[in-house]
């Protein structure tokens, strides 16, 4: 029986056999990792064709993760989006609170098939780390998570969750002390321990086959959303909107819509304090093609190929690279990418919380802010689906500081005034 939830790209358009999406992708890795990366590719190919793998993964996705995830229409939020209809794909309702679990369960099963006993992973916001620690607890695998020191501070709740689940969390102190440096450190670990360790990569970047494999594990997001929209709205959306850091939740939503030419695919990158300030992580908006973490893609870099330090209020988007398939979608014009500032994302976070009773992750709030823009552009006939990739519990400290929500903060009063402004916007 074909799987309902594990739905690898049936067309097999890209990547090519050597891992290229047009000019992007490939395998830029040290020789020491070539055998291990090739093994992942071979095992994944075998798993894709094995009904037993699909059955096991389906069972987990239904009975552990809780798939299919809901599709929620958000009319009170949509009043601020030019009156367009807005639906949220609720990946925040998955077990562990984000889309990350889709990929993690797939790769954890693969880890078992390869006979490896230890898993390492990088994490930015901690969502991939929590999902990985969860799967390792479930499967009895040893687990080490690398996380930039700055991110361990701003996502302290997720650090505690990972440790509660039995994972070792290593705070990485090199470089910008964020996601990029966590990946560097994970690669260093992998080179030394590759014989018994799988690097459970968390996004659609890295060397082939990771961009295609991670995409396939997340493809279910768009497949479900497409079916749910046809049932609920009776038509395909005008736009599918998602935030992009490395790009996994975005490609997961976009991929099933790629053949639907009328559906715009809109990725929302973190503009931080504004792209013009230089303090941002808007890789596709402001980067140039280069090689980082094993593949060719757009990269934030200087004129001599040194990677520049990214910035975003969102730890999960604070990354100077992007998955190669997004670079391919950008250059081909099939994908559109826009940059959303910290402030716009935080306003959208509060707006969704107060109009719909859903607190999104700061990452996902970038997509919500993008949807507000797109909705105003489309007008009242528009239909938008947004990937609500994660829930905001982990971000409450950042949000409380941003909005002054702690009792000790005199800004609570100012916040009340701002609420009135939000309500006023709709009129």
């Amino acid at each position, binding site marked *: 029986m074909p799987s309902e939830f594990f739905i690898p790209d049936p067309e097999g358009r890209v990547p090519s056999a050597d891992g290229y999406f047009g000019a992007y992708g490939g395998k*830029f890795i040290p020789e020491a990792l070539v055998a291990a990366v090739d093994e992942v590719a071979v095992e994944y190919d075998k798993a894709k064709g094995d009904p037993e793998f699909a059955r096991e993964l389906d069972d987990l996705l239904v009975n552990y993760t809780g798939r299919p995830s809901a599709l929620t229409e958000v009319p009170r939020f949509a009043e601020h989006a030019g009156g367009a209809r807005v639906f949220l794909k609720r990946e925040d309702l998955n077990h562990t609170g984000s889309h990350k679990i889709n990929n993690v369960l797939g790769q954890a099963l693969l880890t078992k098939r390869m006979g490896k006993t230890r898993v390492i992973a990088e994490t930015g916001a901690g969502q991939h780390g929590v999902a990985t620690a969860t799967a390792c607890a479930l499967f009895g695998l040893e687990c080490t998570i690398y996380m930039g020191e700055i991110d361990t501070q701003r996502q302290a709740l997720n650090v505690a969750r990972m440790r509660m689940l039995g994972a070792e969390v290593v705070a990485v102190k090199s470089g910008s002390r964020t996601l990029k440096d966590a990946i560097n450190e994970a690669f260093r670990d992998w080179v030394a321990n590759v014989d018994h360790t799988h690097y459970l990569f968390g996004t659609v970047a890295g060397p082939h086959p990771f961009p295609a494999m991670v995409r396939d594990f997340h493809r279910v997001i768009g497949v479900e959303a497409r079916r749910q929209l046809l049932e609920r709205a009776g038509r395909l959306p005008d736009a599918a909107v998602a935030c992009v850091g490395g790009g996994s939740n975005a490609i997961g939503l976009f991929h099933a819509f790629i053949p639907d030419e009328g559906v715009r695919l809109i990725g929302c990158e973190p503009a931080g304090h504004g792209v013009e300030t230089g303090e941002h992580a808007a890789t596709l908006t402001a980067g140039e093609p280069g090689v980082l*973490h094993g593949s060719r893609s757009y990269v934030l870099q200087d004129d*001599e190929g040194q990677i520049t330090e990214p910035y975003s209020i969102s730890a999960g988007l604070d990354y100077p690279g992007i998955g190669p398939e997004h670079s391919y979608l950008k250059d081909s014009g099939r994908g559109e990418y826009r940059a959303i500032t910290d402030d716009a994302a935080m306003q959208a976070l509060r707006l969704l919380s107060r109009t719909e009773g859903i607190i999104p992750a700061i990452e996902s709030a970038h997509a919500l802010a993008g949807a507000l823009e797109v909705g105003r552009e489309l007008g009242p006939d528009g239909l938008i689906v947004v990937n609500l990739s994660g829930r905001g519990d982990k971000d409450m400290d950042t949000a409380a500081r941003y909005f002054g929500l702690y009792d000790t903060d005199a800004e609570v009063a100012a916040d009340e005034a701002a609420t009135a402004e939000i309500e006023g916007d709709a009129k």
Partner: protein
Amino acid sequence: MSGAALTGGKGHLLSDTLAAAKAEGRSALIAYLPAGFPTVDGGIEAIKAVFDGGADVVEVGLPHSDPVLDGPVIQTADDIALRGGVRIADVVRTVREAHEATGKPVLVMTYWNPIDRYGVERFTAELAEAGGAGCILPDLPVQESVLWREHADKHGLATVFVVAPSSKDERLAEITAAGSGFVYAASLMGVTGTRESVGAQAEDLVRRTRATGTDLPVCVGLGVSNRAQAAEVARFADGVIVGSAFVKRMLDAPDRVAGLAAVRELAGELASGVRGQA
């Protein structure tokens, strides 16, 4: 470019130097130091000191913001160099001055992105013109290296590939067929840095690499830091590559002069090691 004599890279000098060491019945000593560390001029002085102490070949590191194959010692040096504002022009000057002062082969070791961004043709032309002997690019596997090799060959630069204990025999054959200068055999699975011992994996890897039938010298790197280890590796390898131990001597030295003396002394110890004097 000023004249015909300067237009060709010194890949042949690298081969001749390694052949000469072999003719003497010994291994060659290959040292690594990053450019721009602690300063551009200080780095050039350090390379001269290492040659003076007895190194046969030097690899100049082109520092990168994201050195995923380097351990903490070289990361620290790269960081110092980058914060000091080192540019590719400085790396090229380092190669030029080190080669001109000594007449010895000088390679560049770096990651792929800086060269990709700078432009492969521009980089290979400038490196060759400066008297560089070639390049080691540890994150550019042989399958992705076609464009690089085309330009490197044109300019007379060697392309040194890394092999690892995990490399399968058929890959060793592909790599030795594509490479030139020598083969860099990683002694163990891991990043750069000094180790207590250099494992038995290294000897097996050298044996398997030679079994491909390659004529290239096989040199062993990763983990070697002292005379005894150099002597041990020299028993079975054509060259012994030492990096972090030199950088560490510089980092630990109280001042510039002491740092230069320390790396010269270490080169001397290792040079006697590669001559079998443990």
